[in-house]
């Protein structure tokens, strides 16, 4: 069964580019435009990996991460923060809240995201 990935990202072009890349390479991938719809989707389906942007409408990425790690049903899902907001403070905070990795969008290519997903979900 293919592994499933949820990408929480409000910027639709960036979201689609990654989702398409993952789907083309045998993953099941879905996009959520904000934290609330992400939690709705997680009620319906179990995901194996979450990619998370930090700047999101309604709940911030950090709030989403915190809530994910507090909930017993979602806390074991690996979360990779994938954002263009990348001060040392942000990186520390993401790590403190339990993120597995922190990647800067502008410095990554869709292929590198694919490789990262493969490494984590192997």
């Amino acid at each position, binding site marked *: 069964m293919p592994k499933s990935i949820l990408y929480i990202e409000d*910027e639709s*072009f*960036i979201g689609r*580019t990654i989702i398409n890349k993952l789907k083309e390479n045998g993953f099941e991938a879905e996009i959520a435009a904000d934290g609330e719809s992400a939690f709705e989707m997680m009620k319906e389906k179990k995901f194996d990996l979450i990619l998370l942007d930090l700047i999101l409408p309604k709940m911030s990425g950090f709030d989403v991460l915190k809530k994910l*790690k*507090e909930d017993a049903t979602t806390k074991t899902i690996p979360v990779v923060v994938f954002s*263009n*907001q*990348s*001060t*040392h*403070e942000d990186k*520390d*905070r993401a790590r*403190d809240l*339990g993120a597995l990795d922190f990647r*800067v*969008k*502008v*410095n990554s*290519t*869709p292929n590198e995201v694919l490789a990262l997903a493969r490494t984590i979900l192997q």
Partner: protein
Amino acid sequence: MITSQLILTIAIHGISGFILLGAGLFVFLQNPNRFINQAFFLNFIFIAIYEAGMVLGPLMPTYELAYLVWFTNLLDVGIPVTTSAVILAAINKLKEWRWYLIGSTVIAVGIFITALVEPRWFLPQVTPKLYFPWYLDGGWLYLVMVVFFIFGALIPYIAMLRAYMSGYDRERIEYFLLMYAFGFGFGNLNFALVFNIPIDPLIGAPIGLGLIPLAYGVVAKNLLNIRVVFARAALFSAGIATLAALLTLLIFLNDLLVQTVPWVQFWTVPIFTSVVAFVVGRLFWSKLVENDRVKYEFITVATHKLRTPLTQISWGVRSLLDTNPTPDVRALAEHIQRSSNRLIELTNALFETTEETSQQYAYRKEHVGLTALTKEVLERMSSFIAAKKLTVNLHGDAEVTVTGDLRRLTSVIEVLMENAINYSPQGEVIQIITYQKGGKAYYSIHDHGIGVESEEQHRIFTRFYRTDAAKRADTEGVGLGLAMAKNIIKRHGGNMGVESEGTGKGSVFWFSLPHA
């Protein structure tokens, strides 16, 4: 009686206290919003209060005052709780252990309240002991506190030790382990005399020594910039000492005024000075913080806002190139790709220099082979080198190894190499020489490019500075690369410079680093 032995003991306790206060404040101000920094601060404050008791307790003129000062030992109940919080935060186990933390807080509050209700259970009396005019004579509740003190912190300490054994985040927690081993090892010795076991509290005085492993961690793992840490810690300690001196002076002046001027009430001066201090402090602080923050936030927000459209352009062009376009479209798309890469590099450079100068964060240290690293960089730049028909030769020792942050040292070599390529005429030779001598590694890049006039040589490492020749040769540059490179080399304990006979005569950019 005050003997020289007493003075020595309380002096060391006093110094320990000041160091702890300074270090606690420093760590707190590094990031006041982070839980671990807050817990660390409280932890050090509690230990510093204990140290203040050790200094003032023996010196009190009357029994009542001595009893009162020694009674502040009760605040020691805060130490195991805050120590546990720091340890659990460091190993990321706060959530799993939250009941442990809540439980020990309840015990601490329990001991505290019981002692306030019945002080004699905690401290029946103070008596002369060894060379102390007054020392604690602990009751059963004091003993309960000591047991809680030892086990309360020991249990999370063991958890940390196990995390360390399992390989969790070794670099970071290594120094926490050592620090608390020292701090508690020494600190607990002071309790012996409370129960008439004749261990001299002089042996337990250097609780502040717990900071030595911390300093070791800071130096060896370069967790923070050591010079900044010491400068700040010294500054804060001096600040606290000055404040204490000012307060003493104020109390003295207040007494004098109350006695000599009939209409001055005992509360006039304190209230008046508090208001003045508050207003002045607030003004000063807000200006200070505002200046720094505005600059930092402007650049961070600006670069972040630029990054989102840049990501879209860069990924969009990439997708376009994947669709197998016609040669014309491909050439145009590659042109857009190069330009967007250039913009991404620029925003990254701006962002990184701001971060480099705005705070002191961790440098990851590992063994780095400079020759191997140079070969990697040259490989990535081979198309630019070929385009200008340049020849690059490597000379010197086969490999020179240094201890440093791989990513940052790569940026340094990239900056120097890019400059050498950009500012060399077509078909020229660039030589790179690496060698080690007398505990140092030397690295230099020799080009036959535009050169640097002698009066400009010290200025080209300043941010945004570009020589006239450089502006003419390459209109794209912004003048951040060399400033960032020199900053990185300095943070590694090395040095960087340039030698050139003048415009058009080529230049030698060099740096030296401590050899691994």
